[in-house]
């Protein structure tokens, strides 16, 4: 068995080494693939906080991913067409600045997560899954019908948005930016898991009656986890749209919600680096098998089946065994 810390260090090294190699070998497409993996991982880090720590099986996380994507698309669209987003009650202009776009993505997905969370957390179990799925579908069809922003066709932007001091058009610059954000999110996730909030949330997942008996509110703990989770996935959505310079209603689709969940499950639910492993494996399979067959999802399905049947802790569980208890 490998120590989980060692595996995590190895994964970070891998995330850095592959793009460096690609740079030297002049393989920009590999860098783009790695960026895709990193952004997917970030989306799944978000879900992992709700799912792994809070036990909330959300099949609607594409809502936040899509909101982040549209935050990017809408702001950049207004900037490139020189039209204001709103003139009343105050003038809001579009922007091509990533930090501003990220902030907008985080705020919008936070608000959505508060509303969806309050409504969904009135239910539990299968009903929770269904209601989050239903929200996903609502946003999906709303985006399709929102003709001001491309409706079914989505929105394209001409050039990637900018970040002070970097040339985001250079693949490795953008990759670096995304990687730093992913690592920051993982760091926050690690701290969160051990914090007083994380401890209470962990208990709320396992035994809500106990949490109430010590005077805390398990539902509120889960709601806060859901909101943090949605905000992170929303930020990932903005990065994803910027990577593709394109956003469309498919970012809201239930398939995407399912994929984000698949990343977490493949890597290991509740494991800090589970989302990273899951996203890397997914993007690798998509690239290697996708070239061979249009039906590569069959292999993904088989992998998923094997993991769910034989390795409840995902790939990290298979490699490292059960999670150690903190001390």
């Amino acid at each position: 068995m490998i120590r989980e810390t060692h595996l995590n260090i190895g994964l970070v090294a891998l995330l850095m080494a592959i793009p460096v190699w690609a740079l030297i070998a002049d393989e920009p497409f590999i860098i783009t693939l790695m960026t895709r993996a990193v952004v997917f991982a970030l989306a799944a880090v978000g879900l992992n906080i709700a799912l792994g720590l809070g036990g909330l099986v959300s099949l609607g996380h594409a809502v936040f991913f899509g909101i982040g994507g549209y935050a990017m698309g809408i702001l950049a669209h207004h900037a490139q067409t020189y039209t204001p987003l709103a003139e009343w009650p105050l003038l809001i202009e579009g922007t091509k600045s990533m930090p501003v776009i990220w902030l907008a993505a985080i705020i919008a997905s936070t608000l959505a997560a508060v509303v969806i969370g309050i409504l969904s957390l009135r239910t539990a179990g299968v009903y929770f899954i269904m209601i989050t799925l239903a929200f996903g579908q609502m946003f999906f069809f709303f985006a399709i019908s929102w003709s001001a922003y491309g409706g079914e066709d989505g929105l394209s932007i001409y050039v990637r948005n900018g970040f002070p001091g970097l040339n985001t058009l250079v693949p490795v610059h953008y990759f670096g930016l995304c990687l730093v954000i992913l690592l920051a999110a993982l760091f926050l996730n690690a701290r969160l898991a051990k914090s007083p909030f994380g401890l209470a949330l962990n208990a709320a997942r396992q035994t809500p009656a106990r949490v109430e008996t010590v005077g805390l509110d398990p539902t509120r703990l889960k709601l806060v986890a859901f909101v943090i989770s949605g905000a992170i996935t929303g930020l990932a959505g903005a990065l994803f749209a910027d990577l593709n310079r394109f956003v469309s209603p498919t970012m809201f689709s239930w398939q995407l919600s399912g994929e984000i969940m698949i990343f977490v499950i493949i890597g290991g639910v509740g494991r800090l680096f589970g989302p990273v492993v899951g996203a890397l494996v997914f993007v690798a399979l998509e690239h290697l098998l996708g070239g061979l067959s249009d039906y590569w999802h069959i292999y993904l399905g088989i992998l998923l089946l094997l993991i769910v049947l034989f390795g409840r802790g995902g790939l990290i569980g298979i490699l490292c065994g059960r999670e150690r208890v903190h001390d």
Partner: protein
Amino acid sequence: MTDPILKTHALTRYFGALKASDAVSVDLRPGEIHAIIGPNGAGKTTLIAQICGGITPSSGRVEFMGRDITGLTTRARSREGLGRTFQISALAMEDSVLQNAVLGALGASGRPWRFFGPALKDSVLRDQAEDALRRVGLHDHLHKRTAELSHGQRRQLEVAVALTLHPKAFVMDEPMAGLGSGGSKQLTSFLDGLRAEAPILLVEHDMDAVFALADRISVLVYGKVIATGTVDEIRANAEVQKAYLGEDT
């Protein structure tokens, strides 16, 4: 006579046609251990859940420290100072013993909205948790996963979590169950001292413990209190003997 800290007024609870609590009026006075005994299914746990939250009475009231708490949530009752232990351990099984105790201390602190510093390095929380674990004799198992504890040790951890709350009254549902004779003697002497800190409403099947500890005993049969009194009074009560204690006492 001192005023009771905790008092139920004619608590009645139906489950369909079944009357699980039938006009139960019991009280708990400062410094005492009041034992509730009764056969399986008599409605002891149902009574506790109406006192501590979880089951709403069909009628009747619960009064705690002079205040009507019948309409309060479980968490509000805990914050008012009720320390409950569960008959079927409700612990975070994947977490360590220490983490479970820290959860109690965290609840008592009322400050769970801290997202960054490690909970186990918070010296206030940790001291409270370790102190409670030491008192119940679990201090050697701080970092053991709760799922790996023996049944008896889980009962001890239940008590430890309640201790971290520093409640004004304990409400314990069969803390001795499954402890074995050594463990239950140890817990008996611990509870004996604990009543000086806060009175205990003690549901218990272990008659040795009950007779050793109780200042008063109430006997619950089919949801109804058929007798309340001192150990000697209950032992001598003919109705109780017939309904519950049998010939061997």
